[in-house]
Protein backbone atom coordinates (compact mmCIF):
# COMPACT_ATOMS: atom_id res chain seq x y z
CA UNK A 1 0.00 0.00 0.00
CA UNK A 2 2.67 2.45 1.00
CA UNK A 3 4.71 1.67 -2.05
CA UNK A 4 1.85 2.25 -4.50
CA UNK A 5 1.68 5.84 -3.27
CA UNK A 6 4.63 6.97 -5.31
CA UNK A 7 3.76 5.14 -8.50
CA UNK A 8 2.60 7.63 -11.13
CA UNK A 9 1.91 5.22 -13.98
CA UNK A 10 1.29 1.54 -13.64
CA UNK A 11 0.98 -0.56 -16.78
CA UNK A 12 -0.05 -4.07 -15.87
CA UNK A 13 0.01 -6.93 -18.39
CA UNK A 14 -1.29 -4.75 -21.18
CA UNK A 15 -2.17 -6.17 -24.59
CA UNK A 16 -3.41 -4.06 -27.46
CA UNK A 17 -4.45 -5.11 -30.90
CA UNK A 18 -5.97 -3.14 -33.74
CA UNK A 19 -8.47 -4.32 -36.29
CA UNK A 20 -7.23 -3.67 -39.76
CA UNK A 21 -10.13 -3.41 -42.21
CA UNK A 22 -9.47 -3.67 -45.87
CA UNK A 23 -12.88 -2.39 -46.87
CA UNK A 24 -14.70 -0.74 -44.12
CA UNK A 25 -18.46 -1.13 -44.06
CA UNK A 26 -20.11 1.44 -41.85
CA UNK A 27 -23.71 1.35 -42.89
CA UNK A 28 -26.29 -1.37 -43.02
CA UNK A 29 -26.42 -1.19 -46.81
CA UNK A 30 -22.70 -1.63 -47.15
CA UNK A 31 -22.73 -4.37 -44.61
CA UNK A 32 -25.33 -6.33 -46.51
CA UNK A 33 -23.92 -5.64 -49.93
CA UNK A 34 -20.36 -6.42 -49.04
CA UNK A 35 -21.02 -9.06 -46.50
CA UNK A 36 -18.33 -11.35 -47.78
CA UNK A 37 -15.79 -8.63 -48.00
CA UNK A 38 -16.25 -7.67 -44.39
CA UNK A 39 -14.58 -10.84 -43.41
CA UNK A 40 -11.39 -9.35 -44.69
CA UNK A 41 -10.48 -8.07 -41.33
CA UNK A 42 -7.30 -8.74 -39.59
CA UNK A 43 -6.44 -8.44 -35.97
CA UNK A 44 -2.92 -7.23 -35.47
CA UNK A 45 -1.37 -7.39 -32.04
CA UNK A 46 0.59 -4.21 -31.46
CA UNK A 47 1.51 -4.43 -27.79
CA UNK A 48 2.12 -7.69 -26.01
CA UNK A 49 2.23 -8.05 -22.27
CA UNK A 50 3.63 -4.64 -21.36
CA UNK A 51 4.50 -4.17 -17.70
CA UNK A 52 5.83 -0.87 -16.42
CA UNK A 53 5.86 0.97 -13.17
CA UNK A 54 6.88 4.57 -13.45
CA UNK A 55 7.52 6.33 -10.20
CA UNK A 56 6.49 9.83 -9.36
CA UNK A 57 9.23 12.25 -10.43
CA UNK A 58 10.87 9.87 -12.86
CA UNK A 59 11.83 10.95 -16.36
CA UNK A 60 11.58 8.01 -18.70
CA UNK A 61 12.59 7.83 -22.35
CA UNK A 62 10.70 5.48 -24.61
CA UNK A 63 12.93 4.36 -27.45
CA UNK A 64 12.55 1.96 -30.32
CA UNK A 65 12.37 1.83 -34.08
CA UNK A 66 9.35 3.14 -36.03
CA UNK A 67 6.32 0.96 -35.59
CA UNK A 68 7.47 -0.63 -32.37
CA UNK A 69 4.41 0.64 -30.50
CA UNK A 70 5.68 3.71 -28.67
CA UNK A 71 2.89 6.05 -29.73
CA UNK A 72 0.32 3.35 -29.06
CA UNK A 73 1.59 2.97 -25.52
CA UNK A 74 1.42 6.72 -24.94
CA UNK A 75 -2.13 6.82 -26.31
CA UNK A 76 -3.09 4.07 -23.89
CA UNK A 77 -1.61 6.02 -21.00
CA UNK A 78 -3.60 9.12 -22.02
CA UNK A 79 -6.81 7.08 -22.30
CA UNK A 80 -7.46 7.95 -25.90
CA UNK A 81 -7.55 4.21 -26.55
CA UNK A 82 -8.00 1.33 -24.14
CA UNK A 83 -6.21 -1.99 -23.74
CA UNK A 84 -7.77 -5.28 -24.84
CA UNK A 85 -6.34 -6.92 -21.78
CA UNK A 86 -4.62 -5.69 -18.66
CA UNK A 87 -4.92 -2.36 -16.89
CA UNK A 88 -3.33 1.04 -16.91
CA UNK A 89 -3.51 3.31 -13.92
CA UNK A 90 -2.26 6.84 -13.72
CA UNK A 91 -2.18 9.06 -10.70
CA UNK A 92 -2.41 12.81 -10.87
CA UNK A 93 -3.31 15.23 -13.62
CA UNK A 94 -1.97 14.10 -16.94
CA UNK A 95 -1.19 16.09 -20.06
CA UNK A 96 0.02 14.75 -23.33
CA UNK A 97 1.60 16.12 -26.46
CA UNK A 98 1.10 13.34 -28.94
CA UNK A 99 0.44 14.66 -32.39
CA UNK A 100 1.07 17.94 -34.07
CA UNK A 101 -2.03 20.08 -34.12
CA UNK A 102 -3.93 17.86 -31.70
CA UNK A 103 -6.45 19.89 -29.75
CA UNK A 104 -6.08 22.91 -32.01
CA UNK A 105 -8.78 24.44 -34.11
CA UNK A 106 -7.26 25.48 -37.46
CA UNK A 107 -9.58 28.47 -37.96
CA UNK A 108 -8.91 29.94 -34.54
CA UNK A 109 -6.02 32.29 -33.91
CA UNK A 110 -3.06 31.23 -31.80
CA UNK A 111 -4.47 33.15 -28.87
CA UNK A 112 -7.94 31.57 -29.16
CA UNK A 113 -6.30 28.19 -29.45
CA UNK A 114 -4.45 28.73 -26.20
CA UNK A 115 -7.87 29.02 -24.59
CA UNK A 116 -9.32 26.12 -26.53
CA UNK A 117 -6.35 23.82 -25.94
CA UNK A 118 -6.05 24.66 -22.25
CA UNK A 119 -9.75 24.06 -21.75
CA UNK A 120 -9.31 20.60 -23.24
CA UNK A 121 -6.71 20.08 -20.54
CA UNK A 122 -9.28 21.13 -17.96
CA UNK A 123 -8.34 24.73 -17.18
CA UNK A 124 -10.90 27.45 -16.51
CA UNK A 125 -10.90 30.79 -18.29
CA UNK A 126 -9.57 32.59 -15.22
CA UNK A 127 -6.68 30.18 -14.92
CA UNK A 128 -5.87 30.59 -18.59
CA UNK A 129 -6.03 34.40 -18.37
CA UNK A 130 -3.37 34.26 -15.69
CA UNK A 131 -1.07 32.14 -17.80
CA UNK A 132 -1.65 33.66 -21.22
CA UNK A 133 1.35 36.00 -21.26
CA UNK A 134 3.64 33.32 -19.94
CA UNK A 135 2.51 30.87 -22.62
CA UNK A 136 2.92 33.37 -25.45
CA UNK A 137 6.31 34.44 -24.17
CA UNK A 138 7.62 30.90 -23.97
CA UNK A 139 6.40 30.10 -27.48
CA UNK A 140 8.12 33.23 -28.87
CA UNK A 141 5.17 33.60 -31.23
CA UNK A 142 4.20 37.15 -30.20
CA UNK A 143 4.12 38.35 -33.81
CA UNK A 144 1.89 35.53 -34.99
CA UNK A 145 -0.34 34.95 -32.02
CA UNK A 146 -3.37 36.59 -33.62
CA UNK A 147 -3.01 34.76 -36.94
CA UNK A 148 -5.03 31.61 -37.57
CA UNK A 149 -2.96 28.56 -36.69
CA UNK A 150 -3.64 27.04 -40.10
CA UNK A 151 -0.98 29.48 -41.31
CA UNK A 152 1.58 28.14 -38.84
CA UNK A 153 4.54 25.96 -39.75
CA UNK A 154 4.95 22.59 -37.98
CA UNK A 155 7.59 24.11 -35.75
CA UNK A 156 5.27 26.94 -34.76
CA UNK A 157 2.47 24.50 -33.99
CA UNK A 158 4.81 22.58 -31.77
CA UNK A 159 5.99 25.72 -30.00
CA UNK A 160 2.45 26.68 -29.12
CA UNK A 161 1.45 23.15 -28.09
CA UNK A 162 4.51 22.67 -25.91
CA UNK A 163 4.08 26.07 -24.28
CA UNK A 164 0.48 25.26 -23.38
CA UNK A 165 1.29 21.76 -22.15
CA UNK A 166 3.95 22.89 -19.71
CA UNK A 167 1.67 25.57 -18.31
CA UNK A 168 -1.38 23.53 -17.37
CA UNK A 169 0.03 22.28 -14.05
CA UNK A 170 0.04 18.62 -14.96
CA UNK A 171 1.84 16.17 -12.74
CA UNK A 172 2.44 13.75 -15.57
CA UNK A 173 3.61 14.85 -18.99
CA UNK A 174 3.65 12.51 -21.99
CA UNK A 175 5.47 13.74 -25.07
CA UNK A 176 5.72 11.93 -28.38
CA UNK A 177 8.30 12.57 -31.07
CA UNK A 178 6.95 16.00 -31.97
CA UNK A 179 9.75 18.01 -30.34
CA UNK A 180 11.95 17.08 -33.27
CA UNK A 181 10.15 19.54 -35.58
CA UNK A 182 11.38 22.49 -33.53
CA UNK A 183 14.53 24.37 -34.48
CA UNK A 184 17.76 23.87 -32.56
CA UNK A 185 17.16 26.87 -30.33
CA UNK A 186 13.66 25.89 -29.35
CA UNK A 187 14.50 22.24 -28.80
CA UNK A 188 17.19 23.25 -26.37
CA UNK A 189 14.72 25.53 -24.67
CA UNK A 190 12.29 22.62 -24.36
CA UNK A 191 14.89 20.35 -22.85
CA UNK A 192 15.91 23.06 -20.42
CA UNK A 193 12.28 23.46 -19.44
CA UNK A 194 11.90 19.71 -19.02
CA UNK A 195 14.92 19.66 -16.75
CA UNK A 196 13.24 22.36 -14.70
CA UNK A 197 10.01 20.35 -14.54
CA UNK A 198 12.00 17.32 -13.54
CA UNK A 199 13.54 19.30 -10.69
CA UNK A 200 10.00 20.17 -9.61
CA UNK A 201 9.22 16.49 -9.30
CA UNK A 202 6.99 16.08 -12.37
CA UNK A 203 6.76 12.69 -14.01
CA UNK A 204 7.64 12.60 -17.69
CA UNK A 205 7.58 9.98 -20.38
CA UNK A 206 8.87 11.00 -23.76
CA UNK A 207 9.70 9.50 -27.10
CA UNK A 208 12.70 10.66 -29.03
CA UNK A 209 15.26 9.40 -31.47
CA UNK A 210 17.93 11.73 -30.15
CA UNK A 211 19.99 9.50 -27.89
CA UNK A 212 21.93 12.52 -26.77
CA UNK A 213 18.89 14.12 -25.18
CA UNK A 214 17.91 10.79 -23.66
CA UNK A 215 21.28 10.60 -21.97
CA UNK A 216 21.09 14.20 -20.83
CA UNK A 217 17.63 14.15 -19.41
CA UNK A 218 16.49 10.71 -18.37
CA UNK A 219 17.12 8.48 -15.43
CA UNK A 220 15.61 5.55 -17.16
CA UNK A 221 15.03 4.27 -20.65
CA UNK A 222 12.53 1.73 -21.88
CA UNK A 223 13.24 0.05 -25.19
CA UNK A 224 10.23 -1.20 -27.07
CA UNK A 225 10.80 -3.75 -29.77
CA UNK A 226 7.99 -5.28 -31.79
CA UNK A 227 5.42 -4.46 -29.16
CA UNK A 228 7.35 -5.79 -26.23
CA UNK A 229 9.67 -4.31 -23.67
CA UNK A 230 13.08 -5.43 -24.86
CA UNK A 231 15.02 -3.67 -22.16
CA UNK A 232 14.19 -1.41 -19.25
CA UNK A 233 16.65 0.24 -16.90
CA UNK A 234 19.50 2.62 -16.50
CA UNK A 235 19.69 5.07 -19.41
CA UNK A 236 23.28 4.45 -20.44
CA UNK A 237 22.99 0.69 -20.46
CA UNK A 238 19.77 0.66 -22.47
CA UNK A 239 20.96 3.30 -24.94
CA UNK A 240 24.30 1.59 -25.49
CA UNK A 241 22.68 -1.74 -26.13
CA UNK A 242 20.05 -0.13 -28.39
CA UNK A 243 22.75 1.60 -30.45
CA UNK A 244 24.81 -1.56 -30.62
CA UNK A 245 21.89 -3.59 -31.97
CA UNK A 246 20.30 -1.06 -34.32
CA UNK A 247 23.36 0.47 -35.96
Amino acid at each position, binding site marked *: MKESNDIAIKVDHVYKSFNIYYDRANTLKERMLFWARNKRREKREILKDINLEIKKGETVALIGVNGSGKSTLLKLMTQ*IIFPNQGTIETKGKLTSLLELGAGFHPDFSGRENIYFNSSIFGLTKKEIDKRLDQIIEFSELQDFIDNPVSTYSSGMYMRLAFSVAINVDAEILLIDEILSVGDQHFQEKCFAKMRELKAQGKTMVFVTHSMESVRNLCDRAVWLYDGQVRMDGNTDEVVNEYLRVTT
Partner: protein
Amino acid sequence: MNIFKKIYNYRELLKTNVKKEIRGRYKNSILGIMWSFLNPLLQLAVYSIIFGALLAGGDKTYHIYICVALIPWTYFTTAITQSAFTVIGNADIIKKVYFPREILPISVVTSGAVNFVISTIIILAFVIFSGIGLSWYLVFYPFILLIQFILLLGISFIVSSVTVYFRDLEHIIGVILMAAFYATPIVYKLEQLPANLQIIMQLNPMTHLINAYRDIFYYHQMPNMQILCILLALSILLTVIGYFIFKKLQKGFAEEL
Protein backbone atom coordinates in the same frame (compact mmCIF):
# COMPACT_ATOMS: atom_id res chain seq x y z
CA MET B 1 -20.16 10.38 -8.14
CA ASN B 2 -16.97 10.72 -10.11
CA ILE B 3 -18.64 11.91 -13.31
CA PHE B 4 -19.96 15.12 -11.77
CA LYS B 5 -16.51 16.08 -10.55
CA LYS B 6 -15.02 15.35 -13.95
CA ILE B 7 -17.59 17.49 -15.74
CA TYR B 8 -17.07 20.24 -13.20
CA ASN B 9 -13.31 20.19 -13.79
CA TYR B 10 -13.89 20.50 -17.49
CA ARG B 11 -16.57 23.16 -17.26
CA GLU B 12 -14.57 25.56 -19.39
CA LEU B 13 -14.52 23.10 -22.26
CA LEU B 14 -18.25 22.58 -21.86
CA LYS B 15 -18.81 26.33 -21.95
CA THR B 16 -16.62 26.79 -25.03
CA ASN B 17 -18.41 23.94 -26.74
CA VAL B 18 -21.88 25.27 -26.00
CA LYS B 19 -20.89 28.72 -27.22
CA LYS B 20 -19.35 27.28 -30.32
CA GLU B 21 -22.51 25.36 -31.10
CA ILE B 22 -24.83 28.30 -30.56
CA ARG B 23 -22.63 30.71 -32.49
CA GLY B 24 -21.56 28.23 -35.14
CA ARG B 25 -25.07 27.38 -36.21
CA TYR B 26 -25.73 30.72 -37.87
CA LYS B 27 -22.22 32.10 -38.13
CA ASN B 28 -21.95 32.17 -41.89
CA SER B 29 -25.44 33.29 -42.74
CA ILE B 30 -26.41 36.88 -43.46
CA LEU B 31 -29.36 37.00 -41.11
CA GLY B 32 -27.31 35.27 -38.41
CA ILE B 33 -29.07 34.76 -35.11
CA MET B 34 -32.30 36.04 -36.70
CA TRP B 35 -32.73 32.60 -38.20
CA SER B 36 -33.28 31.07 -34.79
CA PHE B 37 -36.44 33.18 -34.66
CA LEU B 38 -37.37 33.17 -38.33
CA ASN B 39 -37.06 29.42 -38.67
CA PRO B 40 -39.72 28.44 -36.14
CA LEU B 41 -41.89 31.37 -37.18
CA LEU B 42 -41.93 30.31 -40.82
CA GLN B 43 -42.54 26.71 -39.83
CA LEU B 44 -45.34 27.90 -37.59
CA ALA B 45 -46.87 29.90 -40.42
CA VAL B 46 -46.89 26.88 -42.72
CA TYR B 47 -48.40 24.55 -40.12
CA SER B 48 -50.99 27.10 -39.06
CA ILE B 49 -52.16 27.57 -42.61
CA ILE B 50 -52.20 23.91 -43.63
CA PHE B 51 -53.37 22.25 -40.45
CA GLY B 52 -55.42 25.26 -39.47
CA ALA B 53 -57.63 24.72 -42.49
CA LEU B 54 -57.98 21.03 -41.64
CA LEU B 55 -58.09 20.84 -37.88
CA ALA B 56 -58.67 24.20 -36.25
CA GLY B 57 -62.46 24.08 -36.31
CA GLY B 58 -62.81 27.83 -36.04
CA ASP B 59 -60.36 28.20 -33.19
CA LYS B 60 -58.95 31.74 -33.43
CA THR B 61 -55.88 30.91 -31.34
CA TYR B 62 -54.98 27.73 -33.18
CA HIS B 63 -51.61 29.14 -34.32
CA ILE B 64 -50.70 29.78 -30.69
CA TYR B 65 -51.83 26.29 -29.78
CA ILE B 66 -49.27 24.99 -32.27
CA CYS B 67 -46.60 27.51 -31.37
CA VAL B 68 -46.54 26.46 -27.71
CA ALA B 69 -45.81 22.89 -28.80
CA LEU B 70 -43.64 23.53 -31.82
CA ILE B 71 -40.89 25.37 -29.97
CA PRO B 72 -40.20 22.61 -27.40
CA TRP B 73 -40.60 20.06 -30.20
CA THR B 74 -37.89 21.82 -32.19
CA TYR B 75 -35.59 21.60 -29.17
CA PHE B 76 -36.34 17.89 -28.96
CA THR B 77 -35.60 17.07 -32.60
CA THR B 78 -32.61 19.38 -33.00
CA ALA B 79 -30.91 17.95 -29.94
CA ILE B 80 -31.42 14.36 -31.08
CA THR B 81 -30.36 15.06 -34.66
CA GLN B 82 -27.23 16.85 -33.50
CA SER B 83 -26.42 14.08 -31.06
CA ALA B 84 -26.07 11.70 -33.97
CA PHE B 85 -23.31 13.91 -35.39
CA THR B 86 -21.50 15.17 -32.36
CA VAL B 87 -19.01 12.35 -31.80
CA ILE B 88 -18.37 11.85 -35.51
CA GLY B 89 -18.00 15.58 -36.05
CA ASN B 90 -15.37 15.80 -33.34
CA ALA B 91 -13.40 12.80 -34.59
CA ASP B 92 -10.27 14.89 -34.95
CA ILE B 93 -9.84 15.81 -31.33
CA ILE B 94 -11.18 12.49 -30.06
CA LYS B 95 -8.42 10.68 -31.89
CA LYS B 96 -5.70 12.94 -30.62
CA VAL B 97 -6.45 14.20 -27.15
CA TYR B 98 -8.06 13.04 -23.97
CA PHE B 99 -11.02 14.88 -22.51
CA PRO B 100 -14.16 13.45 -20.96
CA ARG B 101 -16.16 12.42 -24.03
CA GLU B 102 -19.40 12.94 -22.10
CA ILE B 103 -18.85 16.65 -22.68
CA LEU B 104 -20.01 16.22 -26.29
CA PRO B 105 -23.60 14.99 -25.79
CA ILE B 106 -23.95 17.23 -22.74
CA SER B 107 -22.99 20.29 -24.84
CA VAL B 108 -25.52 19.39 -27.51
CA VAL B 109 -28.39 19.12 -25.05
CA THR B 110 -27.26 22.21 -23.15
CA SER B 111 -26.85 24.45 -26.18
CA GLY B 112 -30.27 23.25 -27.35
CA ALA B 113 -31.71 24.24 -23.99
CA VAL B 114 -30.19 27.71 -24.25
CA ASN B 115 -31.68 28.13 -27.71
CA PHE B 116 -35.01 26.87 -26.45
CA VAL B 117 -35.08 29.38 -23.60
CA ILE B 118 -34.33 32.18 -26.07
CA SER B 119 -37.05 30.94 -28.45
CA THR B 120 -39.52 30.93 -25.59
CA ILE B 121 -39.65 34.68 -26.24
CA ILE B 122 -41.71 33.80 -29.32
CA ILE B 123 -44.26 31.93 -27.23
CA LEU B 124 -44.42 34.77 -24.72
CA ALA B 125 -44.86 37.36 -27.47
CA PHE B 126 -47.74 35.37 -28.96
CA VAL B 127 -49.64 34.79 -25.75
CA ILE B 128 -49.20 38.38 -24.61
CA PHE B 129 -50.22 40.04 -27.87
CA SER B 130 -53.12 37.72 -28.56
CA GLY B 131 -54.68 38.52 -25.24
CA ILE B 132 -54.27 35.04 -23.78
CA GLY B 133 -51.85 36.60 -21.32
CA LEU B 134 -49.60 35.10 -18.68
CA SER B 135 -50.35 33.08 -15.59
CA TRP B 136 -48.44 32.25 -12.47
CA TYR B 137 -48.26 28.63 -13.65
CA LEU B 138 -45.21 29.83 -15.57
CA VAL B 139 -43.21 29.04 -12.43
CA PHE B 140 -43.33 25.40 -13.58
CA TYR B 141 -41.47 26.24 -16.78
CA PRO B 142 -38.00 25.45 -15.33
CA PHE B 143 -39.29 22.16 -13.94
CA ILE B 144 -40.75 21.02 -17.27
CA LEU B 145 -37.60 22.13 -19.06
CA LEU B 146 -35.51 20.18 -16.55
CA ILE B 147 -37.44 16.99 -17.34
CA GLN B 148 -37.04 17.56 -21.05
CA PHE B 149 -33.33 18.24 -20.53
CA ILE B 150 -32.78 15.00 -18.62
CA LEU B 151 -34.86 12.98 -21.07
CA LEU B 152 -32.82 14.39 -23.96
CA LEU B 153 -29.57 13.74 -22.13
CA GLY B 154 -30.42 10.07 -21.85
CA ILE B 155 -31.39 9.83 -25.51
CA SER B 156 -28.31 11.83 -26.50
CA PHE B 157 -25.91 9.55 -24.62
CA ILE B 158 -27.31 6.56 -26.47
CA VAL B 159 -27.69 8.13 -29.91
CA SER B 160 -24.28 9.83 -29.95
CA SER B 161 -22.37 6.69 -28.99
CA VAL B 162 -24.32 4.06 -30.92
CA THR B 163 -24.14 6.04 -34.19
CA VAL B 164 -20.35 5.69 -34.15
CA TYR B 165 -20.72 1.93 -34.57
CA PHE B 166 -23.92 1.95 -36.54
CA ARG B 167 -24.00 4.89 -38.92
CA ASP B 168 -27.48 4.06 -40.23
CA LEU B 169 -28.93 5.23 -36.96
CA GLU B 170 -28.53 8.77 -38.25
CA HIS B 171 -31.03 8.09 -41.04
CA ILE B 172 -33.29 5.93 -38.92
CA ILE B 173 -33.56 8.77 -36.43
CA GLY B 174 -34.66 11.14 -39.18
CA VAL B 175 -37.51 8.81 -40.05
CA ILE B 176 -38.50 8.19 -36.43
CA LEU B 177 -38.58 11.89 -35.63
CA MET B 178 -40.74 12.61 -38.65
CA ALA B 179 -43.21 9.95 -37.54
CA ALA B 180 -43.00 11.16 -33.96
CA PHE B 181 -44.12 14.61 -35.06
CA TYR B 182 -47.50 13.11 -35.91
CA ALA B 183 -47.48 10.83 -32.89
CA THR B 184 -47.32 13.83 -30.60
CA PRO B 185 -50.26 16.22 -30.19
CA ILE B 186 -48.59 19.22 -31.79
CA VAL B 187 -51.00 20.15 -34.57
CA TYR B 188 -54.08 18.38 -33.25
CA LYS B 189 -55.74 17.73 -29.94
CA LEU B 190 -55.40 14.39 -28.24
CA GLU B 191 -59.17 14.19 -27.89
CA GLN B 192 -59.56 14.28 -31.67
CA LEU B 193 -58.08 10.79 -31.83
CA PRO B 194 -59.92 7.49 -31.33
CA ALA B 195 -59.75 6.31 -27.72
CA ASN B 196 -57.43 3.36 -28.31
CA LEU B 197 -54.92 5.56 -30.13
CA GLN B 198 -55.06 8.04 -27.29
CA ILE B 199 -53.88 5.35 -24.91
CA ILE B 200 -50.90 4.54 -27.10
CA MET B 201 -50.00 8.21 -27.30
CA GLN B 202 -49.71 8.28 -23.54
CA LEU B 203 -46.58 6.16 -23.91
CA ASN B 204 -44.89 8.98 -25.78
CA PRO B 205 -43.00 11.10 -23.25
CA MET B 206 -43.20 14.15 -25.49
CA THR B 207 -47.02 14.01 -25.31
CA HIS B 208 -46.83 14.76 -21.62
CA LEU B 209 -44.19 17.44 -21.91
CA ILE B 210 -46.12 19.21 -24.67
CA ASN B 211 -49.29 18.96 -22.59
CA ALA B 212 -47.46 20.49 -19.65
CA TYR B 213 -46.07 23.38 -21.72
CA ARG B 214 -49.59 23.98 -23.03
CA ASP B 215 -51.03 23.96 -19.55
CA ILE B 216 -48.74 26.71 -18.34
CA PHE B 217 -48.67 28.90 -21.47
CA TYR B 218 -51.97 28.32 -23.20
CA TYR B 219 -54.64 26.87 -20.92
CA HIS B 220 -53.39 28.53 -17.76
CA GLN B 221 -53.92 25.50 -15.61
CA MET B 222 -51.91 23.32 -13.29
CA PRO B 223 -49.81 20.77 -15.20
CA ASN B 224 -50.34 17.15 -14.20
CA MET B 225 -47.68 16.89 -11.52
CA GLN B 226 -48.12 13.19 -10.94
CA ILE B 227 -47.36 12.38 -14.55
CA LEU B 228 -44.49 14.85 -14.64
CA CYS B 229 -42.88 13.28 -11.58
CA ILE B 230 -43.15 9.80 -13.08
CA LEU B 231 -41.66 11.19 -16.27
CA LEU B 232 -38.83 12.76 -14.31
CA ALA B 233 -38.04 9.45 -12.62
CA LEU B 234 -38.10 7.57 -15.91
CA SER B 235 -35.92 10.20 -17.57
CA ILE B 236 -33.35 9.92 -14.81
CA LEU B 237 -33.38 6.15 -15.23
CA LEU B 238 -32.90 6.52 -18.98
CA THR B 239 -30.01 8.92 -18.45
CA VAL B 240 -28.29 6.50 -16.07
CA ILE B 241 -28.69 3.63 -18.53
CA GLY B 242 -27.63 5.89 -21.41
CA TYR B 243 -24.59 7.01 -19.50
CA PHE B 244 -23.44 3.44 -18.95
CA ILE B 245 -23.94 2.61 -22.61
CA PHE B 246 -21.98 5.70 -23.55
CA LYS B 247 -19.24 4.93 -21.08
CA LYS B 248 -18.82 1.46 -22.46
CA LEU B 249 -18.91 2.44 -26.11
CA GLN B 250 -16.68 5.51 -25.80
CA LYS B 251 -13.66 3.31 -25.20
CA GLY B 252 -13.66 2.39 -28.86
CA PHE B 253 -14.35 5.87 -30.29
CA ALA B 254 -10.76 6.70 -31.23
CA GLU B 255 -10.42 3.43 -33.13
CA GLU B 256 -13.84 3.35 -34.77
CA LEU B 257 -13.83 6.88 -36.14
